[in-house]
């Protein structure tokens, strides 16, 4: 038994085993260094996994040697390999970034718990992504959610409202998880299996009330987790009051993983034979995606808190992903997958820039950003470049997303959607523009709480942030890693789903 054979399980095992060890470490620098090291190891494992999948096709790993459908199967194809690389990649950047930010925002006595919870959260997200077992998805989803509730609540050190935000999320998230597990239960009743591939085979031709109800429960349950408009109400507060490093991490990963789960269930478990899928695409995802794009963007426009603005922007961006996958074409699915990756890069960088501002000014209100271009130029430009990426300016990943999405919309005969997409990105132009104008063109206040002379954020924060900003630009001009792999992943998914590839 060599390591290469066990590669598929490593992304889950490494952080899972490392998490409790964090608690044994002394307070101070050690837990952070340990968590960062683990996230890098995990990232390396995921990269190996992507290249293995890219060469060999689907990898199936039987946990504990138990043969599926009885045993739990880890099933890695290009679609989840990409998401794995994304989640662990973001983790390896955010964990490295977190130290200084966490030291001022989280109660120092909780720092070991903090990094432990981060690692558990990472384990959960990777587990959800990697597994080929429907019930296992639920288990890992809860692992990641529970740790996220705790992480958000740690923001209470700065702002007590983090507690209600975490509690709200707990209630909504638990409802979502319950719906999801009810749906899984119904499918299990109908088919007697929990393995996704097996479910797909056995669901073929089945179209009874039980399966239909199961489908509905799963869609609503996941819809809550991914903050599908109008099930997004937990998200703005959670992102706003969480410690900044946590916001950066979960904004870039948690909802993306949930979108991936939705894709997986639509395309790999149910498939197009199941009549409700097409129905859900046309009458649920498409209109809700469009509505989310606009309404959430418009709400973002009127936020005076930059973190909350970015949170609403996330809800809007999820609308793009739902829109892409609802076209049920290779192009649409590719656009959706590419946007999952790209949005993580831009939102991660934006939240990290806000974290730098919070670190120096102690606030994430719009007023704190006045005149920052002179006082924190490096942070300012990171924010502006990632903001341009969010708007979709060429040479950034945002443009690549828009290009794929627009192409998909025209090719699928939804030309009107193309215009709605660009219209909503113009709203992004306005809300990013508000912050940019504040930073570039306003004078720094001479009195009031933000008048203190402010220095640039420390290098330990700037370097990881600029790694993500650079990724925004690199993947904005080279798409052979993101676009091509996503296209192949989408083709494979379409093949399983039974659509014309």
């Amino acid at each position: 038994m060599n390591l290469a054979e066990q590669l598929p399980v490593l992304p889950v095992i490494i952080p899972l085993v490392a998490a409790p060890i964090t608690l044994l470490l002394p307070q101070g620098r050690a837990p952070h260094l340990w968590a960062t090291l683990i996230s890098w190891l995990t990232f390396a494992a995921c990269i190996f996994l992507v290249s293995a999948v890219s060469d060999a096709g689907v990898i199936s790993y039987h946990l504990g040697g138990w043969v599926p459908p009885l045993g739990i199967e880890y099933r890695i194809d290009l679609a989840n390999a990409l998401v794995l690389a994304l989640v662990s990649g973001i983790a390896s950047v955010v964990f490295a970034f977190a130290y200084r930010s966490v030291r001022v925002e989280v109660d120092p006595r909780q720092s070991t718990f903090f990094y432990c919870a981060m690692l558990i959260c990472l384990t959960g997200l990777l587990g959800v992504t990697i597994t080929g077992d429907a019930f296992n998805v639920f288990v890992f989803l809860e692992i990641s959610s529970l740790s996220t509730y705790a992480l958000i609540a740690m923001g209470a050190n700065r702002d007590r409202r983090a507690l209600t935000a975490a509690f709200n999320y707990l209630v909504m998230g638990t409802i979502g998880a319950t719906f999801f597990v009810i749906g899984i239960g119904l499918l299990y009743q109908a088919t007697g299996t929990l393995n996704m591939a097996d479910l797909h085979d056995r669901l073929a031709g089945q179209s009874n009330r039980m399966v239909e109800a199961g489908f509905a429960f799963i869609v609503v349950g996941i819809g809550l987790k991914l903050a599908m408009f109008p099930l997004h109400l937990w998200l703005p507060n959670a992102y706003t009051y969480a410690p900044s490093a946590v916001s950066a991490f979960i904004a870039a990963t948690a909802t993306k993983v949930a979108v991936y789960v939705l894709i997986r269930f639509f395309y790999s478990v149910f498939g197009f034979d199941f009549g409700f899928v097409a129905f859900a695409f046309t009458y649920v995802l498409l209109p809700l995606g469009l509505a989310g794009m606009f309404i959430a963007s418009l709400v973002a426009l009127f936020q005076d808190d930059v973190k909350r603005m970015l949170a609403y922007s996330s809800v809007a961006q999820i609308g793009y992903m739902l829109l892409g996958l609802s076209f049920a074409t290779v192009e649409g699915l590719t656009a959706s997958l590419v946007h999952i990756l790209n949005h993580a890069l831009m939102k991660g960088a934006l939240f990290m820039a806000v974290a730098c501002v919070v670190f120096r000014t102690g606030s994430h209100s719009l007023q704190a950003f006045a005149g920052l271009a002179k006082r924190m130029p490096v942070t300012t430009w990171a924010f502006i470049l990632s903001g341009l990426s969010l708007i979709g300016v060429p040479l950034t990943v945002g443009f690549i997303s828009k290009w794929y999405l627009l192409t998909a919309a025209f090719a699928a005969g939804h030309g009107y959607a193309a215009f709605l997409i660009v219209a909503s990105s113009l709203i992004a132009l306005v809300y990013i523009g508000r912050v940019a104008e504040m930073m570039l063109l306003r004078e720094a206040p001479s009195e009031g709480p933000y008048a203190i002379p402010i220095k640039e954020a420390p290098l330990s924060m700037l370097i990881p942030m600029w790694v993500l900003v650079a990724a925004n630009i690199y993947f904005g001009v080279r798409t052979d890693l993101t676009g091509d792999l996503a296209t192949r992943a989408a083709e494979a998914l379409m093949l399983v789903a039974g659509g014309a590839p």
Partner: protein
Amino acid sequence: MISPGLAIPLALWVPLLGCLAIWLLDKSPNLREAATLITGVILFVLTVTVFMAVSEGQRPGFQALEVIDGLPIAFQAEPLGALFAVIASGLWLVNSVYSIGYMRAGNEKNQTRFYMSFAVAISAAIGVAFAANLFTLFIFYEVLTLSTFPLVTHKGDEKARRGGRIYLGVLMATSIGLLLPAIVWTYVIAGTTDFMPGGILAQHVDAVGPLVGILLGLYAFGIGKAALMPAHPWLPNAMVAPTPVSAFLHAVAVVKAGVFAILKIVIYIFGIDLLKDTGASIPFMWIAAGSILLASAIAMNQDNLKARLAYSTVSQLSYITLGAMLATSMGVMGGAMQIAAHALGKMTLFMCAGAIYVAHHKTLISEMRGLGRVMPFTFGAFFLGAMSIVGLPPMAGSWPKFFLMLGAADAGQLAIIVVLIISSILNVVYLLSIPVQAFYMNPAEEGAKPQGAGGAFIDWGALKEAPILCIAPPMFTAAGVIALFFFADPLYRFLLPLIGGG
């Protein structure tokens, strides 16, 4: 001599290196300005190299990288682009000299940022000029918008912020909201966005069908830089910028990038024949004609000199759009010549406006009566530039009007000829009246009616001109306006391949 294939990438990179040098030389203004001028000279030599190669029939180009399959960032020089590049780089050099005079005389702040933004903007303009496909053009179009934003908001006060907001808002909204979908749509239909003689959509008429007009409309209004009404408000609002910015960017680089893009799209994406056969461009021809007259009418009511020039620019840009939308060979030729002629003429006018501001801090036309007698050189240059814009021989501006009228006649649109004549008359009224009043009237004092000239016409001993660096450039371009009139034939021959000749 450097090879033309190498000259294109160098022309893109040299201004960026210049930008870096300007940044490094922040502390010593003289060296910093030297960096700008040296960059300008090198860039001009490079674009002339490309221009010469193109005139010999070569089409140098290169591909930088392929972003998405079938969507490369690629460059290729063709006559229109080579012409635009030479105009932009040549006038940038002239304008840089002028900028030095203007910015120093006015003791402006943040001069390093000013010159850096200028260098990035010129690189973007060169990118637009040499773009081999719509995708590349779009990239540099957006870079041009963003890099000029700091120039528009240079003053940093509330008025500048408001102007900047409208500038960025209109240009980004039109380009992302209309131009980007149009490009994607074209790509989905044709499978490519390459500029090809004859047009790429012409081969996919079935797929485009009756939607040609809609697609053309997306381009016409999506390219906000062409300032086709009602996508024009950004241009008057950009006048809050220092005058060198208005002179170069909002008379040459930015606005010409817009109309240049429209011409390229009509020639190389749709193909003149497709538009002629479908008649899809007729509505836009009328919109352009309306834009010409309406903008002139608004210009007439502007007392602020820069605002009047801005609306005049809106009007003059629509000549080029009109030429494209006529969908005839002569129309396209007229549009292409107008790019060159208007650039020289309008830049002269703006530089004169700046010189007046530097010397006398006057911005209102009503305050400039009699001023010609203390600034004869400035107003002399202004007079020549205005003559060219009106279209009187022997000024460069007369040729494009001539070709546009030929084009209108070819297209059987006699009413357009009437529009052109009315517009020229309006131009006479609102442009030529300025130097005439400056030379022949007495300054108005405290609400009194201005009087006719009295006493000595010009007292040569008591001139109050702007610094030499602010007067020499407009006089130079004014001389260029006359020179170009006599060199219209080589220019015509150079541009012939555009319309399938040569």
